[in-house]
């Protein structure tokens, strides 16, 4: 309960900061909209040239892509930890975090909220509706609920993997270039996994389970019954990865060496 109220406290603080810089807010709003529009055009242009891919047709691929954008937007809004190493370890900001009576990871998530990323979810929804209507997907009453569960599951998978990566900084001093690489790998989850070779498919399912952010849950809405098992596994994988990342974090904090001053 305390954590929920803290979330809203930080949220209102975040909004206040944003509202303080009016010009900045508008510029950001427009640039976000613009970049999402470009994204949308890009997707349609790129996929305009594909027809069938291992049993997936063009609209299905676009649908998966659209679905992927939603958990990704949620992830970017709440787990903005790309610069964790630089900001918190090298500069020693974690000192401050650790002297406050809230779980350290939760505090960092709260401090680094980036809600404007949620615009990406709108693009994602637009893409899904576009592709969905062309495919003639029927919307059932339980779809929105499952959608939310899958989105949360996918965002947790993403969050878990990137928190684990951030944890590396607790053990190794040097800044790692793993984050950008992982970002590239994560993009593979946007496309149907069975187009890849078996090893990559295994990795994307069980080791860096980015397939659970895009293809697997989206397959459910596309009515691909052979994938249903994987679809329903999304929240489970999300929780497993997220919980283990938090456990790893708790171990890592003990190894924190601080920055000299």
């Amino acid at each position, binding site marked *: 309960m305390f954590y929920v109220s803290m979330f809203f*406290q930080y949220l209102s*603080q975040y909004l*206040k*900061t944003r509202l303080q810089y009016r010009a900045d807010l508008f510029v950001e709003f427009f640039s976000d909209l613009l970049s999402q529009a470009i994204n949308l055009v890009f997707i349609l242009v790129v996929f305009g040239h594909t027809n069938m891919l291992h049993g997936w047709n063009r609209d299905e691929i676009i649908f998966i892509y659209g679905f992927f954008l939603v958990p990704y937007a949620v992830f970017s809004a709440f787990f903005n930890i790309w610069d964790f190493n630089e900001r918190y370890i090298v500069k020693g900001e974690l000192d*401050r975090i650790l002297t406050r*009576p809230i779980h350290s990871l939760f505090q960092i998530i709260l401090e680094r909220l980036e809600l404007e990323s949620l615009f990406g979810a709108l693009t994602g929804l637009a893409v899904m509706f576009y592709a969905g209507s062309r495919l003639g997907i029927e919307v059932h009453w339980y779809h929105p609920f499952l959608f939310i569960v899958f989105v949360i599951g996918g965002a947790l998978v993403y969050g878990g993997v990137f928190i684990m990566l951030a944890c590396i900084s607790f053990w190794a001093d040097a800044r790692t270039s793993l984050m950008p690489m992982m970002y590239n790998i994560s993009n593979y989850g946007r496309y149907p996994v069975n187009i890849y070779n078996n090893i990559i498919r295994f990795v994307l399912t069980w080791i860096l389970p980015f397939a659970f952010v895009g293809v697997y849950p989206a397959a459910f809405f596309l009515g691909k019954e052979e994938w249903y098992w994987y679809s329903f596994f999304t929240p489970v994988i999300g929780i497993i990865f997220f919980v283990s990342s938090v456990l790893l974090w708790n171990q890592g904090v*003990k190894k*924190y060496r*601080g920055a000299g001053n």
Partner: protein
Amino acid sequence: MNNAIEVQKLRKEFKAYSSRSGLNGAFRDLFTRNYKIATAVNDISFTVKKGEMVGYIGENGAGKSTTIKMLTGILTPTSGQITVNGMNPHKEREKFVQTIGVVFGQRSQLWWDIAVQESFRLLKKVYKVSDQQYDDHMNHVIRTLDIEPLLDKPVRKLSLGQRMRCELAAALIHNPPLLFLDEPTIGLDVLVKLKIREFLKEINEKYNTTILLTTHDLTDIEALCERVIMLDEGNVIYDGPLKNLKETLGEGKELQFQLLEKVDLAAVKHVTSGMPVKWEFDKKELIFTANIEDSDELISQVIAAVAAAFKIKDMKINETSTEEIIRNIYEKGAVEVG
């Protein structure tokens, strides 16, 4: 329980790798690294009673900050035991930090972009302080530190002195019984320093707040702390009252005379013959300096003898300053106090 802090055989080691020199060395480092274990804090033990104000001093790199970080639960000790406010700082971190206040002079605790009062409001929620408690306590703090006009300004627009006062107020929002200050007066002007000192004294008296403070400014320590713990290369080299340190190590007093007439050193020496005095003469400034033991009687005797024989233009009695004492200690690296 009367002790705020109990530390036993506390040790912190850092594993650092030492790089070889040159490009050749860099290639070798790629494959095998030379690890060196550096001991930042070397089996130190001390206790601090509730309500004490303790100065924690030492040169740069002596291990002060490392100790403070272990005491506040930021770092995990390599070995040894810490009990602060009856808790183990690292194990029960979230519960523990509720009972302490921390100010790091070189790092801001406040949010950069938002107004000071917004930071306070958020911290108030973080520490679960009720409105009534907040009003009772913070109104007083805000008035004493004179930060009322700063409350609606964003932190990034404050000067260092203004920010420091706000930091101090922020650390006290939950009225902690124990306060850690790591170089709270670094870079501040005399007036702000005085204000902060007065304020610290006041809360110490009012709430019996225990204060542990590190600083390089010894006047801070002289003004605030009865007790000092001195650290050198990770070892406690002195732990006791500041007064003792001065009495035992303050190497006597210095009497300086400027005389009206031209007198040579031998004549002055002759006047005080028989007394244990060491004379020095500064030819440029024409100052005679007598180094003598710190005894009231001897001082008056020397002054009387000199005054009887010559006409005095100016005279000074100097005490060895704390700074000098401490410099001496660092140079010797050990203290022997009876």
